């Protein structure tokens, strides 16, 4: 990999992010009496696009403190478009650095337009939130979302928006009152707000499979995401189609809402029964897929019945041999955002510390904070490693690598340590202890739920 390309300036990036920052500052104070500069800058930035007229009108209205919901949606769309262009510029740079080709452009999918009432309720709350601004939030404003989130969580088709809002609201609630906040996570909350706003558009959250996958799946590693009341495990893998066509990078995900006391190994326990791939990861095996639905963005919609256990497959062999030949899927328009960049890479021949790999004289930040606690991979193992499978990411102006697995030396023997090694279960001493504690916690909650919920 050409790490030198990752530290070079990307033309136009600072200007685009400057506009985003100005808009984000307007959300800090709120859009009742807004700092109008940021709104007009955003409108100017999309002046040459099909959004121009609507965003210009939205900026006018918002600057006068008279924006309606449709105006907030237009502003969120403009901000998303701008970050989409940042995403595209960064992805181009990643492609140059990895030397891998991109897959086909995904088609526009028009989704199903259901549950419009809940979406409208969510949009109305998001508009109120924008009016109060981050400095104006209090428990009344924040708890206004509780009922709509509870209702949305029960609708599988609304899971994306429900899960996003649930995590967002927990952060807002923990930060009340906004007036006494030390520092405001401006870009983050504006990201979550705009994304939620767009997902309230009927059909926007729809991800429909456009094809099926038949062939061999070679896992590279597992990435975990979690907020207090939800968790997702996302497997990155190389898929080799049976028909001999070009291998491609794919993902397989499983997610679940959860009580906030289910943590660590407890998350693996919740997810494990719903994706046999997690067991295959722990056992170091490939899987054979038969007509598994897949989206144009490279997301398998996993179904255990369409997968069976394959031959042993070492992730590092996959990374060395199969990964360089695989195409990287193209992200759908609405999902283009720098935070979405998570590109599998294989690195070796670096010198390392806990937070930096030095490759051919270039420093690349290593984000070990994203490595889940419920696994054997530690920052120490990363620092002592000689090869790494990771996800290339970009945040706060810099590229970094999130390790998924490393090769390191233990008692003069080369061993591989995987972040997701405990995904399918573990016999590791520390792991087994964590599993036992998590089993007890879940059993206790289920016992309480059985006793109290159905009265």
């Amino acid at each position, binding site marked *: 990999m050409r790490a030198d390309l990752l530290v070079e300036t990307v033309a136009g990036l600072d200007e685009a992010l400057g506009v985003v920052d100005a808009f984000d500052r307007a959300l800090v104070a709120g859009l009742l009496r807004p700092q109008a500069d940021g709104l007009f800058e955003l409108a100017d930035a999309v002046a040459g696009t099909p959004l121009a007229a609507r965003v210009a009108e939205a900026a006018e209205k918002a600057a006068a403190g008279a924006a309606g919901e449709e105006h907030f949606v237009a502003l969120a769309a403009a901000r998303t478009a701008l970050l989409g262009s940042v995403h595209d510029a960064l992805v181009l740079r990643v492609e140059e650095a990895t030397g891998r080709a991109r897959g086909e452009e995904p088609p526009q999918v028009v989704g199903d337009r259901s549950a419009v009432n809940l979406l409208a309720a969510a949009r109305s709350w998001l508009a109120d939130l924008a009016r109060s601004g981050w400095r104006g939030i209090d428990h009344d404003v924040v708890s206004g979302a509780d009922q709509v989130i*509870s209702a949305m969580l029960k609708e599988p088709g609304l899971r994306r928006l429900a*899960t996003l809002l649930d995590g967002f609201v927990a952060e807002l609630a923990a930060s009340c009152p906004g007036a006494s906040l030390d520092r405001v*996570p401006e870009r983050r909350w504006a990201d979550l707000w705009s994304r939620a706003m767009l997902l309230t558009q009927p059909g926007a959250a729809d991800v429909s499979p456009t094809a099926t996958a038949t062939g061999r799946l070679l896992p590279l590693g597992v990435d975990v*995401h979690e907020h207090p009341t939800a968790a997702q495990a996302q497997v990155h893998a190389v898929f080799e189609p049976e028909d001999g066509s070009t291998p491609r990078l794919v993902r397989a995900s499983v997610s679940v*809402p959860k009580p906030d006391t289910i943590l660590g190994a407890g998350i693996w326990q919740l997810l494990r029964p719903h994706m046999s791939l997690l067991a295959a990861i722990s056992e170091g095996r490939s899987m054979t897929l038969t007509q598994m639905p897949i989206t144009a963005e490279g*997301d398998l919609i996993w179904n255990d019945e369409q997968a069976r256990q394959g031959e042993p497959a070492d992730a590092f062999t996959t990374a060395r041999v199969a990964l360089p030949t695989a195409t990287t899927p193209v992200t759908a328009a609405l999902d283009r955002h720098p935070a979405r960049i998570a590109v599998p890479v294989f690195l070796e021949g670096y010198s390392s510390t806990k937070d930096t790999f030095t490759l051919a004289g270039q420093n690349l930040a290593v984000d070990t904070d994203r490595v889940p606690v419920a696994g054997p991979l530690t920052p120490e193992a990363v620092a002592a490693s000689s090869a790494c499978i990771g996800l290339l990411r970009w945040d706060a102006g810099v590229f970094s690598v999130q390790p998924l697995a490393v090769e390191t030396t233990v008692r003069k023997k080369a061993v591989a340590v995987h972040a997701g090694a405990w995904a399918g279960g573990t016999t590791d001493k520390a792991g087994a202890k964590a599993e036992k504690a998590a089993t007890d916690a879940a059993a*206790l909650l289920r016992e309480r*739920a059985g006793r109290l919920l159905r009265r």
Partner: protein
Amino acid sequence: MLSEHRERSSTARVIPPARPRKLAKVPFVELADGRLQGVVSSGSDVERVYVSSVAAGNYEFACSTNNNRPCGGAYGAFCKHIRSLISEAVVQYGAERVGRYLKVDGEDAQSITAAMDLTSPAQGGNTAAAPVFSRFLHHLAYLELAPTTAPLPEMQWFPPTRAVV
């Protein structure tokens, strides 16, 4: 990531990670509505739970059963349920966060409890018991929601963290 980048980071961690704890004694605890509040199991009757709370700032406390019978132990001082609630909150959230929320200094559950005891806090009414209990049921209801294998791209904004509270 780096703290100076907090404002410009899409993945700044806002809520410190909770720590796993044993749930038998105190199945539910939260810092919400200006209170440390939660549900404490009865030592003698599996059908009974206590709803206990301590208010931030003035430490006004309340304890009653889920059927709204007052707790016999909570007269003039914290009962054992409230003491358990505080110590489990410290396990889950860390002493620093619990102390900051309640506006009390203390490096562990014992010193936080003692500091609040010293102010002879008033006993409040049980008006919060019903909403707290319903939040507990809401919390349990998460166990019944179905998992999905459709991707949730939004979860990219919610990375885990190894940071210790």
